[in-house]
């Protein structure tokens, strides 16, 4: 019994720091589709202090909506206050999986000998595993040793990843770092009854020293060196250990997670087994890399949440994956920090109307203290989206600085490199070669008009040349990332059909010129048979209709000195993909893109662009 049983109904949840999101995936007419979704506030707060309450609420909403959808009151997903997993056909659900970033996610501290070498590799391993890196302690980070000890003591991370030294290299610095960690005797953030997990992934020659120094004080786990030689990273084993410890230690301490961990189950080889809860960003990373590999493209993705903004990218021919977390850039808990980081001026430069400054400041703080509220007034929506642009912009700056080639290694130089003058340690983020930009997170996925998501993505990331744009419709990438663990077929089918919503393409010549001069001569044969032809002056935006699955044949010639991908002044003939919004021709300039400083000049310009983008109702523009 059960061996040949197909997965017919799957529930997946993502317990975020603000909201618990649930989706129902069903096997309908020979394919997997996401059919219903629900959400409820996450309940790690007192007095409930139990994450499963929020899960039950979010799944109850699924149940109600499924009943409405199928007009069938017998549909039941919750039994005895828990998710009902049943092997009987038509009863309960066949599998339940979940990701989690509640409780502030996984907070780690990493150490390395040289900050820019093994330190950075350790950071990459931790980030790739879905962690927030609270601090990087390195032998050469210029802080005095006592300051480092104080810092380790204060931070109370969930775990520490120690790297340092290539295999066979110096052991002294690694030993010294271990002594500092030992002296700080750090206590874990959640629960004082267990020892802090420390993963050592450094020079193998120092393993015994590390055991001696930290073996008794911490819960020490030793794994392969994550930078065995300077020219190569080996992040997999360290990442796997982080995931194991996340489940065993961190999640088990968070309120209600023990219960939740016993609920997440799915059939593997016909047997119902436990499916570990994944850190949300790790699950998103899984899915992003899959898209890049299947389609052989470069992808940049962003997930802007309440507390943090994650940026994921897959660049270069080798499909190098990078993830960064901007721990204090977000749209609710951290919204006030966006203001502190970007400054009021940078936010207001995206706002097409006058607003009383102190009113805006109070609005931002009120969102911070009541993070689950949503903008009911149109003006507040415009303001939140202006703040989102700045949060995204800053998160992207941090990502570009982090996503770099390995430093310190002897790079084999080829003739092409000599011309490109590429150096070790340069950012591998290349907006010109980027194929697909994906946005997700509440402010992006729940934007009332998809045109708003297009505008936010373009204004914040400034894509260059030709780039496809998409959003994760209801931010189900995390759930699909963990779903892939039990059924890759279900995950990829839902991903293609229900998850990504293609918004369209953006064409943006790189360079700058005087306003009024021709920046792009475009000829587009649109799917409806119309031919659009215009010499578009510098400083304009055009939006052309071209639907999902449709393409427009385009001939694009950049203005003098500008480049759309084939080199300065070079014409391109290509097919542009459409989407729910269409094709954007953006001649506002790149490197630099600039907005007038004077409000009297800027506001009319913003209004003109926003009208062309069709982002907001006329009355506000």
């Amino acid at each position, binding site marked *: 019994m059960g061996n040949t049983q197909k997965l017919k109904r799957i529930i997946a949840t993502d317990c975020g720091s603000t909201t618990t999101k649930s989706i129902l995936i069903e096997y309908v007419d020979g394919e997997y589709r996401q059919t219903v979704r629900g959400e409820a506030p996450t309940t790690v*707060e007192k007095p409930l202090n139990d994450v499963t309450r929020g899960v039950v609420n979010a799944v109850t909403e699924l149940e109600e909506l499924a009943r409405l959808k199928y007009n069938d009151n017998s549909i039941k997903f919750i039994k005895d206050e828990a998710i009902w997993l049943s092997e009987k056909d038509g009863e309960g659900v066949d599998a339940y999986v979940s990701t989690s970033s509640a409780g502030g996610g996984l907070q780690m501290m990493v150490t390395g000998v040289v900050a820019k070498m093994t330190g950075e590799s350790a950071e990459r391993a931790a980030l790739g595993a879905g962690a927030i890196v609270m601090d990087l302690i390195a032998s050469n980070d210029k802080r005095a040793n006592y300051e480092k*000890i104080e810092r380790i003591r204060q931070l109370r991370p969930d775990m520490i990843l120690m790297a340092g030294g290539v295999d066979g290299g110096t052991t002294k610095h690694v030993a010294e770092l271990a002594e500092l960690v030992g002296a700080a005797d750090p206590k874990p953030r959640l629960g004082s009854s267990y020892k802090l997990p420390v993963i050592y992934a450094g020079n193998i020659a120092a393993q015994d020293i590390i055991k001696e120094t930290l073996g008794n004080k911490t819960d020490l786990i030793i794994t392969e060196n994550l930078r065995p030689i300077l020219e190569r990273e080996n992040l997999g084993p360290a990442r796997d250990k982080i995931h194991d410890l996340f489940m065993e230690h961190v999640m088990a301490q968070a309120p209600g997670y023990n219960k939740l961990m016993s609920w997440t189950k799915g059939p593997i080889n016909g047997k119902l087994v436990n499916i570990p809860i994944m850190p949300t960003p790790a699950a998103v990373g899984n899915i992003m890399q899959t898209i890049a590999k299947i389609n052989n493209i470069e992808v940049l993705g962003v997930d802007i949440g309440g507390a943090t903004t994650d940026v994921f990218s897959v660049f270069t021919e080798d499909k190098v994956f990078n993830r960064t977390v901007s721990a204090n850039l977000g749209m609710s808990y951290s919204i006030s920090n966006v203001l502190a980081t970007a400054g009021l001026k940078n936010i207001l430069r995206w706002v097409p109307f006058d607003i009383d400054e102190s009113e805006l400041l109070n609005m931002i703080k009120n969102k911070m203290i009541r993070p*689950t509220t949503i903008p009911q007034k149109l003006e*507040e929506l415009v303001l939140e989206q202006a703040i989102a642009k700045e949060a995204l912009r800053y998160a992207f700056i941090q990502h570009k600085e982090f996503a770099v080639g390995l430093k310190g290694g002897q790079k084999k130089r080829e003739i092409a490199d000599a011309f490109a003058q590429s150096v070790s340690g340069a950012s591998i983020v290349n907006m010109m070669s980027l194929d697909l930009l994906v946005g997700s997170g509440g402010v992006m996925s729940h934007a009332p008009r998809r045109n708003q998501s297009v505008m936010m993505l373009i204004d914040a990331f400034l894509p260059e040349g030709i780039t496809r744009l998409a959003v994760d419709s209801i931010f189900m990438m995390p759930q699909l990332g963990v779903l892939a663990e039990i059924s890759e077929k279900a995950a990829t089918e839902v991903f293609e059909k229900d998850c990504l919503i293609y918004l369209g393409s953006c064409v943006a010549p790189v360079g700058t010129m005087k306003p009024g001069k021709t920046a792009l001569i475009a000829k587009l044969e649109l799917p409806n048979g119309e031919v659009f032809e215009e010499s578009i002056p510098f400083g304009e935006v055009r939006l052309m209709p071209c639907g999902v699955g449709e393409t427009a044949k385009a001939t694009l010639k950049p203005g003098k000195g500008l480049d759309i991908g084939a080199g300065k002044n070079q014409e391109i003939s290509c097919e542009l993909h459409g989407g729910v919004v269409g094709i954007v021709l953006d001649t506002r300039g790149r490197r630099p893109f600039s907005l007038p400083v004077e409000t009297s000049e800027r506001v009319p310009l913003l209004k003109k662009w926003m009208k062309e983008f069709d982002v907001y109702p006329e009355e506000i523009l």
Partner: protein
Amino acid sequence: MAQAYSPGLTVTKSIVLKKDRILPLKGKVLVKKGDKVKAEDVVAETLLPGKVVPFNLANKLSVPAEMLGQYLKVKAGDKLKKGQVMAETNGFFGFFKTSVKSPLDGEIENISKLTGQMLLREPKIPIQVKAFIDGIIVEVIKEEGVIIENKSAYIQGIFGLSGERSGEIKMLASTPEEIIKPSQIDDTCKDKVIVCGSLISYNVIKKAQKVGVSGIISGGIDDKDLKKLLGYNIGVAITGHEKIGLTIVITEGFGMIKMANNTFNLLKSFEGHKASIHGITQIRAGVMRPEIIIPIEFKKDELKAEEAKMATLEVGTTIRVIRQPNFGLIGKVTGLPEKLTKVESETMVRILEAELENGKKVTIPRANVEVIEE
């Protein structure tokens, strides 16, 4: 039924309250089960390990780390006096000795023969935990702290500044809308917890600091004044450590917002009573909100804490609007349509219909209300 709304802040005239009073590390508990304690009483204390000071002994002695052992005059675990010789080389026939003295009073944590580094620890720092509320010790957690229980009038604030303080409640505002002027704060407010109305200005806070007010309770505060007071912008809502000489509890939010009637009336009914308050706010993992605790008389058998439950949103439920428009107003739910509805911002959301205290009938996203328990 679906619960897409925020659980409200608790405002109640009587609740059985349990407070954990735990040391940051293991130490000594000074009270026993059944003891009656006052807010100011110390219930547990410990010694926090002193700061660790790394000291490169091999370097100072100009010897290789592996040879350090033969010159040591001290060992790990030894107590140290400032100026005490820790290591000394033999020199030539007793001359040209190099000695290294301790830079501090404290003890030796570790001496590494691999790196030649010593870790010295400064003397321990005493830490005390006070009861914070008047009540009865109901549980002693060995070497860690206690759980105190009492019956209190209890108000949760939305945002606050600075740590634990107590004082007598004094009403400065006569209505929940009133805005207090600095001149209203005089010497009679010293050591008191003063209750203001809809807004406290920077000047009011400054005057309160000057007079020696223990705490301020207000409906709202302007972000600009907050920044001026602290000298920095609060990026993430983690507060409680501010050294501003008094505690501030904001009950409604930022801007001028009338204090909720039931909060104001409750405080008024306890004028002259002692209140324990703190402004500790953490709106992230393990959410913490500021609290106002006013202990009331109780009999022992009354101490039965009710199980925490989530208030339900139904027709007739009292709610507070927590976002513009109508921010801060109270109303009653008149309808809960199931279907998603488009609001002014064009967002499709689940809404509720309500009649506000000013008689206005409105529709509000469910996410933008808080349930007020009555």
